[in-house]
């Protein structure tokens, strides 16, 4: 039953991404709400379903987007992997971990998209992509990171209530 909460949350994040966030440009970059949402969810200690969330989100984004399906699925699974690694190492500073994962994850997904699109024959100049797309996207995702982390932390506490110790 706990996993059912993934359905509305993932749907809402992808709908918001397509309908709202994708229209807010900084140079050529846009925010990536599903990425930030997954990073925040994976950082919650009690959450054990982050891999399923990443797969479902990747499938849904791949369905909507013109990107090859391998990019969102691999990218989002890599975000969860990064989050799990950071969670164990910087567990005392979750916001620092959140920012680090958002920064690295955005670059990772960007590089992955660039590589796959160039592989399938789309002419993308690397300098333009890095300067006009990746860096602005990193900044926008950083701005999204704090509110999304707060929402996902509250959601995790609601879905996985901590038993009271007497």
């Amino acid at each position, binding site marked *: 039953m706990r996993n059912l909460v993934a359905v509305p949350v993932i749907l809402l994040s*992808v*709908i918001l*991404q*397509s*309908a709202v966030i*994708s*229209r807010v*440009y900084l*140079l*050529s*970059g*846009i925010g*990536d709400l*599903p990425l930030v949402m997954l990073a925040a969810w994976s950082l919650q200690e009690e959450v054990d379903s982050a891999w399923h969330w990443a797969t479902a989100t990747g499938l849904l*984004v791949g369905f*909507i*987007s*013109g*990107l090859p399906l391998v*990019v969102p699925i691999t990218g989002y699974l890599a975000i969860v992997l990064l989050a799990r690694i950071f969670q164990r190492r910087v567990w005392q500073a979750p916001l620092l971990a959140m920012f680090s994962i958002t920064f690295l994850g955005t670059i990772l997904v960007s590089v992955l*998209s*660039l590589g796959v*699109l160039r592989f399938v*024959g*789309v*002419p*993308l*100049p690397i300098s*333009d*992509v890095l300067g*006009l*797309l990746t860096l602005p*996207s990193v900044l926008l995702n950083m701005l999204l990171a704090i509110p999304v982390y707060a929402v996902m932390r509250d959601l995790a506490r609601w879905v996985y209530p901590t038993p009271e110790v007497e």
Partner: protein
Amino acid sequence: MALALGGYFSSASNVFTGSLVNVQAWFSARFVALQDFFTSPRDLASLRQRNAELEGEIAELQAQVIQLQQEVGETEILAALVDFSRARSENSYKAAAVIGRDPSPFLHYVIINVGSNDGILRGMPVVTNQGLIGRVDAVIADAARVELITDPASSVNVRLQNAETEASLVGSVTGDVTLELIPQDINVQPGDLVLTSGLGGGYPPDLIIGQVVNVRSRDFDLFQQATVQPVVDFNRLEIVLVIVNFKPVDIAPLLPAP
């Protein structure tokens, strides 16, 4: 009585009535002041209530004004689209609203709210009343994804109206569109109109795309390049038209294998 009727008492009468009016005015003013003093708390409360009601009405009316302005804007767009479709009666159109954009910043796609249930097929061109915006890339029952001409993977065969030459229009990751493969011996000028040529069968001919902004011609290049300013504002796409009677031709089998 005769003296009074003759007007001999008029001055005395004026003095008397004037004094009477003044005294009555004085009393009346004091009475009204006292009445206000005693009744003002009740009026204040009712005024506050009335004020709140009116503020509520103002807020409601402002919301209505915003909604009506939005409807007027949509109506204007639809009227322009209807004019466009009447002017080009050889094509059949299906109007659609843009409901989203591609989640990836690498791609320039929009999502529209018509799909295979409305007769939309992959490859159908999509336009606005201003000009070409792209073509349908993927379709599901109630929605379709449209590849814009600004997409880095997009390539449109075009012709320059004034120069009477053909070229290829390509998109980019920044959303700029560029003309490539313009022969060196062709004189291209800023302001030249760019239209679809219809070559390749991907788009119908003579759809307006934009104007040449500047030309880059170097002696050692095989071809000239030109930057094009599209006539459509791709950041403000709301309602578009899909040309439903155009069947794109797939010439891939005719091309020589690499």
